[in-house]
């Protein structure tokens, strides 16, 4: 879009309704008073200027947000508590999605005699209004959501990265065309794109996949393009040119190491966004259609029986919340909570 100084605009918003808290691309956490240890270390460096003054914003040039990210990742490897918690929550959900269908094989098998049967040992989530096993449906729905989300994100990330690097590298009309397209697409809310898409063919898996991927690649394109343009314009790449190190070196040492953490963060966002979009569409009745087991759809179906069988409504809600919380926890640990579309994407 048009906001030219990298602030504001609508990019970065297709992420769980979250987004950059820092529209200017600066790193808020360094704005806080620096920890004594770090400050002390820097005072010994040759860099001129005092480092121990209040609120020293750090060397703005290269100690940008990503050094914070590096620290965060190192800390994460050590395994903070929040990180481990988030990982184990996500792990549990994935395990459930993988193993659930083995234990409770058929999500569609109806047995009206077991209408709203209470939870038991063999059926820990009871049966729904059609006598189907809620556990089986939940496992199947979780697997579907995770798979589709990961697939959409992988497609969007791959397409966006290729387009972004291409635009930044070649410039010219390729850049102009891709950027023009992204300007328009970025103004379209993700839900709108997917809704319109699902209107073409009624709620097929295929439409949802294409719609979600189509709505999300723009995000990757903009971030990758902005970052690649910065990297390719930097003295390091100029030096690599003078040293005649070739394209493989550029990709391997300059671009990919810069892009990887960004993509990782965006992908974490993206998985959450996709799962949420799927369930939201299912919930309002224009996503996947019954009798497919889908998280949002399950909430809608179970809600009328809230007073008789609250566990039926709660089960999909808990899975959804667990996934989103887990992804949030991972991202926080990444130290890149604020790195998303607005990071120089405009």
């Amino acid at each position, binding site marked *: 879009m048009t906001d030219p100084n990298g602030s504001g605009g609508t990019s970065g918003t297709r992420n769980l309704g979250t987004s950059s*808290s820092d529209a200017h691309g600066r790193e808020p956490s360094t704005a806080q008073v620096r920890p004594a240890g770090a400050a002390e270390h820097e005072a010994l460096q040759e860099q001129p200027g005092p480092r121990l003054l209040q609120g020293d914003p750090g060397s703005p040039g290269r100690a940008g947000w990503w050094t914070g990210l590096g620290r965060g990742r190192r800390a994460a490897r050590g395994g903070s508590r929040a990180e481990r918690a988030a990982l184990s929550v996500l792990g549990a959900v994935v395990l459930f999605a993988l193993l659930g269908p083995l234990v409770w094989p058929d999500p569609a098998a109806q047995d009206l005699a077991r209408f709203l049967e209470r939870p038991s040992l063999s059926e820990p989530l009871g049966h729904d209004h059609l006598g189907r096993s809620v556990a089986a449906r939940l496992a199947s729905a979780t697997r579907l959501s995770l798979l589709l989300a990961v697939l959409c994100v992988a497609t969007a990330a791959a397409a966006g990265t290729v387009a972004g690097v291409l635009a930044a590298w070649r410039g010219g009309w390729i850049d102009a065309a891709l950027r023009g397209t992204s300007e328009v697409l970025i103004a379209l809310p993700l839900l709108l794109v997917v809704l319109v898409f699902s209107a073409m063919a009624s709620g097929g898996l295929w439409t949802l996949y294409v719609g979600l991927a189509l709505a999300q690649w723009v995000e990757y394109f903009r971030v990758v393009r902005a970052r690649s343009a910065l990297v390719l314009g930097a003295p390091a790449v100029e030096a690599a040119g003078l040293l005649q190190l070739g394209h493989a070196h550029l990709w391997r040492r300059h671009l990919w190491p810069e892009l990887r953490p960004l993509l990782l963060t965006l992908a974490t966002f993206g998985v959450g966004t996709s799962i949420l979009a799927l369930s939201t569409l299912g919930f309002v009745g224009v996503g996947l259609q019954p009798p497919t087991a889908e998280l949002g759809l399950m909430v809608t179906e179970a809600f009328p029986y809230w007073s008789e069988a609250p566990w039926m409504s709660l089960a999909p809600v808990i899975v959804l919340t667990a996934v989103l919380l887990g992804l949030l926890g991972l991202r926080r640990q990444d130290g890149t909570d604020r790195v998303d579309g607005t990071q120089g994407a405009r």
Partner: protein
Amino acid sequence: MLRVLRQRLVQAVGVAVVVSTACFAIVQSLPGDIAYRIAAGRYGYDQVDAASAASVRAELGLDRPAWQQLLDWWADLVRLDLGTSLVTGASVAHELAVHLAGSLQLAAVALGTAFTLGAPAGLLAALRPGGRLDRLTSLWVTGSRALPPFLLGLVLVLVFSVHLGVLPAAGHGGASSIVLPALTLAAGLSGLFARVTRDTAVQVLSSEHVRFAETKGLRASTVLARHVARNTGVTLVAYLGVQAIVLVEGVVVVESLFAWPGLGHALVHAVFWRDVPALQATALALALLVVALNTIVDLATLALDPRPRSGRAAR
């Protein structure tokens, strides 16, 4: 400023073309004969027969090549002729006005609530980073992210309508009916506002120029009012632009959930019934709403921040 307006205008036109073309593609891909549907829309399903469908087909030129029909389709849009609803047979433009008003009402109330809750909370949190209020705000943000609007809406319905029975869960009757939908929208937004205000204010508070203003001998309140508030405002306003899409998406979900008569509700209905003219109109209105919000934010930022904004975007 003219440059901003020109760019946003180009974007708006692009959005219109994309949405309209997508809707045309839907028409072409619809199962069954579109002429039957339109005839049914006009005369009612009982009166449709092959003859009336054929007359509709000839009248609308549906037997011509697709690209000619697409040009016609665009031409209708340029003339602001949005057509009639395939379901109700009413003028889409007329319904659009009603729905737009409904959505704007909801969005304005939600935005206002979110701002009055979030911005002061963020500012207070920024004065003591790591303090109790700061941690509370952070928890709130995490919570609002983990509980998406439709689930939050359900929880609110359960608590206030089903169990307490104090507020209506759906519809558009009286002032109390807006409370739950607006609250659902505002809950998530206010957390984000708080977070952005807090981060920006912390950053501004520790900036060189605020430090310098302090050592000039200004009182803390003067520094806050003259330097911190304005610089925080610049970022906050820019962030409102980022929120435009979140707001519009939220509107779609919340309206469907609470059956609030707005654009989002109409859109979901249109998708459900494959009511293409209504779909096109509502989708266009929502997308242009995003562009309009961003234009306002651009202009506000321009007025608040004198720094030139060429630089990176010019590349």
